[in-house]
């Protein structure tokens, strides 16, 4: 093609301290194309987007817009350069009405109204306060607001994620026509169905680096998955374990039974059982409803439908204390959510059982002490800095969050990405610990964003996509490529010729 790219970013680098978010990213978008930006969790997509839209600044790299070097320092600069993003979270000001929001960004009202109608919302009152508008509609309004100023490059981050099917269909239709009229769209999505139906080319990121640019054609999704995984696809499964003979035959009643669980718009229909002595893995791309699943099981949000059973008894959690009483402990990925950082290791470990609501009166310090010490010994927590948890290393902090539930003798542990950002050695200890818990007959639900962990720890893997369970793997089959495909909603064992591209015509979302 002879046309010059509308947007051309090369050699983009961004580091946060020692963490490299972008190593060498590039993205080149031609006029009139819909360009997909793809990559696994943590590949650097969102960092690249933030740099392109001026939300953060790159450490190095060149960004050319229409062949000119532009220094995009703020979202306002990006707007002036003709680059408009629609972020995953709505960016209307919640306390202002829609009309004021339009005024704030200098968006013309009539084109906005026209786009809103086009996108399938006929009865919007622009005097409504943004806070009172449902999330799905807000996202559409965000898109309409961007379209109304006719940007040269429209950047859509997971645009269809929270949308019901009818709205998503309209959105995709409008995006496609955007390309036809000579404007460009950068489309970030985890859904191959949408990408194959919509996009002309795709740029694939892996570990902060652009590893390939491909034309979207039938069968390309296998190549994209390969690129996203890189060398890892070749890795032999040395670490593969056999599923343990977990549940004893006589005990067929599951520890935790989840049926048709729904939470808001994020979690649509999830059912599974968790047996005693089992570690069940949960694999999902970001934002597929796993956060809501864990929050509902931990009692911190109330499900909007479905049932949760513990040891065969239906339960309703109104408060995390109810879940804890039922023996369900939650270990969040973000340790600051679980720990009282300024307090000592001992207090942190003792908190769940010493602060139990029914135990009024003074705390039995001797009993507390012995339970805490045994938990610390078991986890080999480095207690040199035990007076303040915030002075421990990340790995030791994570051990404290697990130790407290061992000390509290929780029967079921929900671990949400417990190894995020901790060192390799501690990771190994945590894997071992989770296995030990299972061997003692306890049950563990383990969400991880690092697919290679699955075969080290789990007996079974539940894959969630779009708020639904799309597949359940026995551990023997759960190698990384298989999990990656499943996490992207591709059917198991799909060959190139029966890939998702081949049946786009039967897919409701992709229908033009």
């Amino acid at each position, binding site marked *: 093609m002879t046309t010059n790219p509308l947007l051309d970013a090369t050699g983009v680098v961004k580091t946060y301290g020692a963490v490299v978010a972008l190593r060498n990213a590039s993205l080149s978008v031609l006029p009139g194309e819909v360009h997909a930006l793809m990559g696994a969790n943590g590949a650097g997509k969102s960092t690249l987007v933030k740099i392109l839209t001026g*939300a953060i600044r790159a450490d190095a790299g060149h960004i050319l817009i229409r062949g000119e070097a532009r220094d995009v320092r*703020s*979202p*306002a600069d990006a*707007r002036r350069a003709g680059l408009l*993003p629609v*972020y995953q979270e*709505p*960016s*209307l*000001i*919640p*306390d*202002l009405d829609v009309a*004021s*929001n339009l*005024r*704030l*960004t*200098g968006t013309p009202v009539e084109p906005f109204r026209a786009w809103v109608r086009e996108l399938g919302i006929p009865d919007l009152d622009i*005097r409504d306060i943004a806070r009172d508008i449902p999330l799905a509609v807000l996202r559409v309004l965000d898109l309409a607001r961007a379209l109304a100023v006719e940007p040269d490059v429209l950047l859509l981050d997971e645009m269809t994620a929270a949308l019901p099917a009818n709205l998503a269909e309209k959105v995709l239709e409008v995006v496609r026509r955007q390309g036809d009229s000579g404007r460009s769209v950068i489309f970030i999505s985890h859904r191959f169905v949408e990408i194959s139906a919509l996009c002309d080319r795709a740029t694939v990121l892996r570990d902060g680096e652009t590893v390939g640019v491909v034309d979207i054609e039938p069968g390309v999704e296998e190549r994209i998955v390969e690129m996203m995984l890189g060398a890892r696809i070749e890795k032999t499964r040395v670490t593969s374990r056999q599923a343990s003979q977990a549940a004893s035959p006589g005990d067929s009643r599951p520890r935790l039974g989840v049926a048709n669980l729904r939470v808001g718009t994020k979690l649509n229909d999830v059912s599974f059982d968790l047996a005693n002595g089992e570690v069940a893995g949960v694999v999902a791309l970001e934002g597929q409803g796993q956060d809501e699943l864990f929050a509902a099981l931990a009692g911190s949000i109330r499900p909007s439908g479905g049932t949760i059973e513990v040891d065969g008894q239906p339960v309703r959690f109104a408060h995390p204390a109810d879940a804890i009483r039922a023996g369900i402990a939650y270990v969040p990925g973000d340790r600051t959510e679980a720990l009282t950082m300024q307090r000592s290791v001992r207090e942190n470990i003792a908190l769940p059982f010493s602060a139990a609501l029914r135990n009024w009166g003074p705390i039995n310090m001797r009993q507390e002490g012995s339970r805490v010490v045994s938990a610390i010994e078991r986890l080999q927590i480095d207690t040199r800095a035990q007076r303040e948890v915030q002075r421990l290393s990340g790995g030791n902090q994570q051990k404290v969050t697990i130790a407290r539930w061992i000390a509290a003798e929780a029967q079921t542990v929900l671990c949400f990405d417990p190894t995020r950002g901790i060192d390799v050695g501690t990771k190994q200890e945590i894997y071992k610990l989770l296995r030990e818990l299972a061997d003692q007959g306890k049950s563990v639900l383990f969400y991880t964003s690092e697919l290679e962990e699955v075969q080290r720890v789990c007996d079974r893997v539940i894959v969630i996509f779009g708020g639904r369970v799309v597949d359940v793997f026995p551990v023997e089959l759960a190698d990384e490529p298989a999990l990656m495909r499943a996490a992207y909603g591709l059917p198991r064992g799909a060959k190139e010729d029966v890939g998702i591209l081949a049946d786009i015509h039967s897919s409701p979302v992709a229908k033009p």
Partner: protein
Amino acid sequence: MTRLVRRQGWVAGLLVLFVVLLVITRLIQPGYGSGDFGSLVRAVLPYAFAVAAQTIVVIAGGIDLSVGAMMALTSVTAASMMDGASEEYALFVVPFVLAMGLVLGAVNGMLIVVTRVPDIVVTLATLFVLQGAALLVLGAPGGAVAEWLRATIIGTVPIPGLPGISAWIPKALVLLVVCLCIIWIPLKRSKLGLSIYAIGSSELAAFRSGVPVARTKIIAYALSGLFGAMGGLALTMSTGIGAPIPGPYLLASVAAVVLGGVALGGGKGGLLGPIVAVFVLRLVRTDLTLLAIDPNVTAIIEGAIMVAVVMFGAFITMRGRQ
């Protein structure tokens, strides 16, 4: 219609409350007349400016603890400059003091934006600094004020042919309304005003909408300083001297902001509500004094009223949501 009620219902409720309180005052003290109303407004005047100063910062999602100290400093500056000077000199003093408030407010804002120290800490520090500065300017209450300035808040606005109504329109009220409107109405209609609401409502969303967050915040604090300086001037105008130790303006301003329907989290509310609220709070105090209630009990009752009204408001909002 329902939209109007929902948006302005709180202010309307406060106005009704104010009228009810006026009626109660008449019942307690049948002689309560236009003259007493005039002195109420004069007493409220500095409070009202303090409230305006606090309101604009709270809407922008911050808080300004230095409001009272700002008033003290501007008050003593004005009083000592006018002491022994000619009447015309005051024509220079007034804009000078207003500019001083604007600049000091902007410094507050810049410190918050640049150092990223929480606003509550920065303005607490400014509180001490300004208070010390006020004592340096004038060690004890003193100074003087130009006669024509005093005259602008004493007496009523004569309306030819309607002496009955004009007796109820004190000059101080007109001055207050004019000063607030001159700044607030253009602000409310400008993009700057929207930006102030935007950063208070959601800083991230505002940033993504292309709002210059830092600049807007500095301007909000600068305007707060300007209102503070107006309050200082009003204080000097009504007492005739400058007082280096500020009255209970800071806490009163926060109380009126809350009572006036401005969310302390930012982004919500207007200026009218807090202004009416400060009138309500002062009138309650007047009534309790008229009833010869122990001043200490008065404070307890005022606190109880505040909690009750805010709880009532939250209750109504929750009912409205369902």
